[in-house]
C-alpha cells in the first residue's frame, strides 16, 4: 500500500474542504486604544476592527477591486452624492439578531455625529451638512451627502456596521472575548458570521485569535521562532534575510508596499534660511540634479537588502490602479546632474560646488534619530552628493524636535522621512498635494500657490475629486504624478517591499502589499496541525 499517496490524498481533502479549528496567534505593537470601531485611529485598534467588524463592501487586498460583503450590490448616483446599498438577507449579528438597513442608518448617523469626532468620518465630510439616510426597505438603504464625495464606495471599506440593539454585537468573523491590558486580546469565532465556504459551511475556519501585546520586535521574532506566534505582519529586511536563510518557506515578500522613503528641501516662505539657500531649494534643476546624484539602486540593495525598489514617483506600483505606469525612476547620472548644475550657474572648484555668487553648496539633512535605515540612507546620500561637490551634514533629531522644525519653526534645510499611503484613492492625498494644505510639506499652508506648477496641481486635484468617471480621474491624477516627477518637490527614493513571516502551519495565506498584509483574508485562513503540504 502506498501510504504516501494516502497521506497526500487526505491532506488535499483537508485543504479543499477546509480545516476548522485552531488558534491564530500574532502580536500587536501596543494596546488597542479603543474597541469602538467608529473611533479607530491607530494600527492596533484597526487590527481589532478589521477582525471583528463587518463592512458593506470590501477592497480585496490582492486584486484591489471592490467585493460585496454585507451589501449584495450598490449604486452611486446624483453625481457622487448618493450611494444606495442593497443588503444581504441572510445576515445576523453575533448575538443572533437580524441585520437590517436600520443598523446601517444607525451606524452612519452615529459616525457622522460631530460630537463623536470619528476619524473614520473625516473622508465623508465633503460638506457641513449631515447626510440624509433613507431606509426604504429592510434591505435597502440610501445615503445622500450634501456634496459629491469622490471614490465614495471605498470609504465604506473602513466603516464597520454596528448594531442598533446591542453595542457588543458584531458582524465580522470574530468577536472580542477577553482583553487583558498590556497582555493580550482574545477573539473568538462569531457563530453567526454570514459567510460560508464553497461547501456551504459557515466561516471562519479558525476558532480563536490570540493577539499578544508585544512592543519589542526582537521578542516577537523570538516567539515566532519558538512557534508561539504564527505570523509577523511586518519584517525588517535584515530579519527577513535571516529567516529566509533558515527557512525560505516561512517568509514572504509581497513586492512593493505603499510605504516609500523620500527627502525634500525646505521651500517654506517663512523659513529663516538665507535667501541664497532658498533660491537653491526653489530651483527645479537643483532638485533634479540632487535627485540624479543619489544612487537609489544602492540604497535599495544596501539598506533594504534588495527588498525595495527605486521609486518611480509619488504613487507606489503597489497601488495598481492609480500608479502612473509611464513614470520611471530618476536615473543615477552624475554627468547629467553636473550639467544641470552648470546650466544654473553652479561651478566646481576642487571638490566643492559653488553657486554663482560663490556660496559653497552645503545643507543639512534632518531625519529622526533611532531609525537605522534612515540614518544609513542619509549617510549614503551624503557620500553620493559629495561626488558632485555638495556637502551634506546629517542631523538625527528626536522625533518631537523634528516635527517642531518641520511644522512650526521651519528651521531645517532638507528632511528625510517615510510616507505611508493608507488609502489607495488619490483624494486621500488632498492634504499633501493642495498648496493650501498643512501637509504640503515642502511649503505648507500657502495662501496662494507659490509656483505655476503647484497651481496646476491644485486644479488637477480638485478636478479629480469632483470627477465621478474613474478613467477620467485616473487621467487627471496621472498628470499630477507627472508634474511631481518633473518638479521633484519630494525626491522619492525607494518603495519598500512588504515583508512578512508565516508559520508553516498556516494555510490559505495570500500575502498582500496593503494592510492588513498577512491576514486580510482572515475568514479563509486555516491552521493545520501538520507541517505537510503547501500554503
Amino acid at each position, binding site marked *: 500500500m502506498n501510504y504516501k499517496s494516502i497521506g497526500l490524498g487526505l491532506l488535499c481533502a483537508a485543504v479543499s474542504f477546509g480545516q476548522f479549528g485552531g488558534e491564530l496567534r500574532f502580536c500587536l505593537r501596543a494596546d488597542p486604544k479603543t474597541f469602538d470601531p467608529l473611533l479607530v485611529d491607530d494600527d492596533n485598534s484597526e487590527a481589532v476592527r478589521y477582525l471583528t467588524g463587518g463592512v458593506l463592501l470590501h477592497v480585496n487586498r490582492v486584486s484591489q477591486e471592490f467585493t460585496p460583503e454585507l451589501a449584495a450590490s450598490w449604486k452611486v448616483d446624483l453625481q457622487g452624492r448618493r450611494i444606495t446599498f442593497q443588503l444581504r438577507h441572510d445576515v445576523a449579528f453575533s448575538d443572533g439578531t437580524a441585520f437590517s438597513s436600520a443598523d446601517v442608518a444607525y451606524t452612519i448617523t452615529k459616525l457622522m455625529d460631530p460630537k463623536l469626532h470619528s476619524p473614520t468620518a473625516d473622508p465623508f465630510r465633503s460638506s457641513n451638512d449631515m447626510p440624509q439616510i433613507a431606509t426604504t426597505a429592510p434591505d435597502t438603504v440610501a445615503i445622500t451627502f450634501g456634496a459629491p464625495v469622490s471614490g465614495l464606495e471605498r470609504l465604506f471599506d473602513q466603516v464597520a456596521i454596528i448594531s442598533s440593539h446591542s453595542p457588543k454585537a458584531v458582524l465580522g468573523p470574530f468577536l472580542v472575548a477577553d482583553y487583558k491590558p498590556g497582555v493580550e486580546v482574545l477573539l473568538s469565532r462569531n457563530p453567526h458570521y454570514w459567510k460560508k465556504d464553497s461547501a456551504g459551511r459557515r466561516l471562519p475556519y479558525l476558532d480563536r485569535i490570540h493577539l499578544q501585546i508585544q512592543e519589542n520586535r526582537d521578542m516577537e521574532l523570538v516567539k515566532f521562532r519558538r512557534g508561539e506566534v504564527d505570523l509577523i505582519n511586518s519584517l525588517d529586511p535584515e530579519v527577513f534575510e535571516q529567516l529566509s536563510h533558515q527557512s525560505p518557506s516561512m517568509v514572504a515578500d509581497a513586492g512593493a508596499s505603499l510605504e516609500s522613503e523620500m527627502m525634500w528641501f525646505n521651500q517654506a516662505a517663512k523659513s529663516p534660511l538665507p535667501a541664497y539657500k532658498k533660491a537653491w531649494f526653489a530651483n527645479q534643476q537643483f532638485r533634479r540634479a540632487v535627485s540624479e546624484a543619489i544612487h537609489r539602486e544602492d540604497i535599495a540593495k544596501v539598506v533594504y537588502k534588495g527588498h525595495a525598489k527605486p521609486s518611480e514617483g509619488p504613487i507606489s506600483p503597489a497601488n495598481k490602479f492609480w500608479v502612473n505606469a509611464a513614470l520611471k525612476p530618476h536615473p543615477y547620472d552624475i554627468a547629467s546632474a553636473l550639467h544641470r548644475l552648470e546650466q544654473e550657474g553652479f561651478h566646481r572648484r576642487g571638490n566643492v560646488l559653488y553657486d554663482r555668487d560663490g556660496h559653497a553648496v552645503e545643507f543639512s539633512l534632518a531625519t529622526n534619530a*533611532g531609525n*537605522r535605515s534612515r540614518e544609513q540612507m542619509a549617510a549614503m546620500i551624503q557620500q553620493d552628493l559629495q561626488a558632485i561637490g555638495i556637502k551634506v551634514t546629517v542631523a538625527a533629531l528626536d522625533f518631537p524636535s523634528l516635527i517642531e522644525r518641520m511644522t512650526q519653526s521651519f528651521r531645517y534645510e532638507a528632511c528625510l522621512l517615510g510616507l505611508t499611503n493608507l488609502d489607495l484613492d488619490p483624494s486621500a492625498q488632498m492634504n499633501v498635494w493642495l498648496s493650501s494644505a498643512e501637509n504640503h510639506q515642502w511649503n505648507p499652508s500657502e495662501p496662494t500657490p507659490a509656483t505655476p506648477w503647484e497651481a496646476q496641481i491644485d486644479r488637477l486635484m480638485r478636478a479629480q475629486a469632483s470627477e465621478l468617471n474613474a478613467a477620467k480621474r485616473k487621467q487627471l491624477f496621472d498628470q499630477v504624478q507627472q508634474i511631481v516627477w518633473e518638479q521633484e518637490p519630494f525626491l522619492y527614493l525607494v518603495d519598500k517591499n512588504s515583508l512578512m513571516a508565516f508559520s508553516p502551519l498556516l494555510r490559505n495565506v495570500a500575502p498582500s502589499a496593503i494592510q492588513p498584509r498577512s491576514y486580510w483574508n482572515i475568514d479563509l485562513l486555516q491552521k493545520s496541525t501538520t507541517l505537510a503540504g503547501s500554503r
Partner: protein
Amino acid sequence: MKSVFGWMVLGLLLVLSLGSVLVPGASYAAQNREFTNAAPSLRFLLGTDDLGRDRLLRLLCATRISLLLAAAAALGTLLLAILAGGAAGYLGGWFDRSMMRAIDLMLSLPWLFLLIAARALLPLNVSPQISLIVTYFLLALLGWAAPARVVRAGVRSFRNSDFVLQARALGCPEVRVLWRHILPNLRPVLLAQFWTSIPIFILAEANLGFLGLSASEPFPTWGNLLRELQSPLMLRPESFAPVVAVVLTVLCFKLITPWGGSQV
C-alpha cells in the same frame, strides 16, 4: 601592578587610535557598498558594517575621539570644580551655603534630558565633530558638581590648618594661600577626580550615542557603534568589539585611578 596594566592598555589604545590616522587612504567614512557586512578578513580585520565601512577604522577613530574628548571634558570639569568647590570651602559662610545648594540642584538635574534638549537646540548644519565637542562641553558643564563637593570638603579641612594660619600670619594674600598652599595638598584628590570623571563621560557619551543622539553620520563614536547591539538577534562576534573597547577602557581607568576610582 594593576595600574601598570591599566596604563599599558590605555597607552596601547591611544597609540593605535592615533596611529590609524597615518594609514594612507584609510577613511572611517568610506563606503564599500560591494562589501557590506563583510566578515573579518585581511582587508577588513574586523569586517565591515551595514554600509561597507571598515569596522576597525571606525572603532579606532571612536577610541581616539572618546579618549581625547573625555579627558578634555574631565579637565574642564575639574577646573570648574576647583573654582566652585575651592571658593565655597575657603570662603565659607553664605557663599558656601549658596554653592552647596547649587551643587545639590546640579546633582538632581536629569542630565540626559538636559543633554537631549541642548542638542536639539543646536543648528542642524553643525558638523558632527563640532556637535560632539559641544556634547562633551555640555557634559563638562553638567559634571562639575560632584567633584566640587569633594574639593570643598578638602579645602575646608585645610582652611584652618597650621600651615595655612602660618601663611596668613606672614601676610600671604588669600588667593595665594589657596593657590600655593591648599591646592597642592589637594593634588591626590584632584587627580582621583580627574581619572574618575573620564570614564563617567565616556559612558555618558555612549548612552547618548546608543540613543542615536551623539555625533551624526558618518562620524563614529563608541555610542554610535554600540547601536548595532540594539538588535541582539542580528549580532555577530565582531559587533562586540566596541563593547570590549568601552569595558576595557573604563576598567583601565578604574585601575589607574588612585584608591580604585570608587565613584565609577
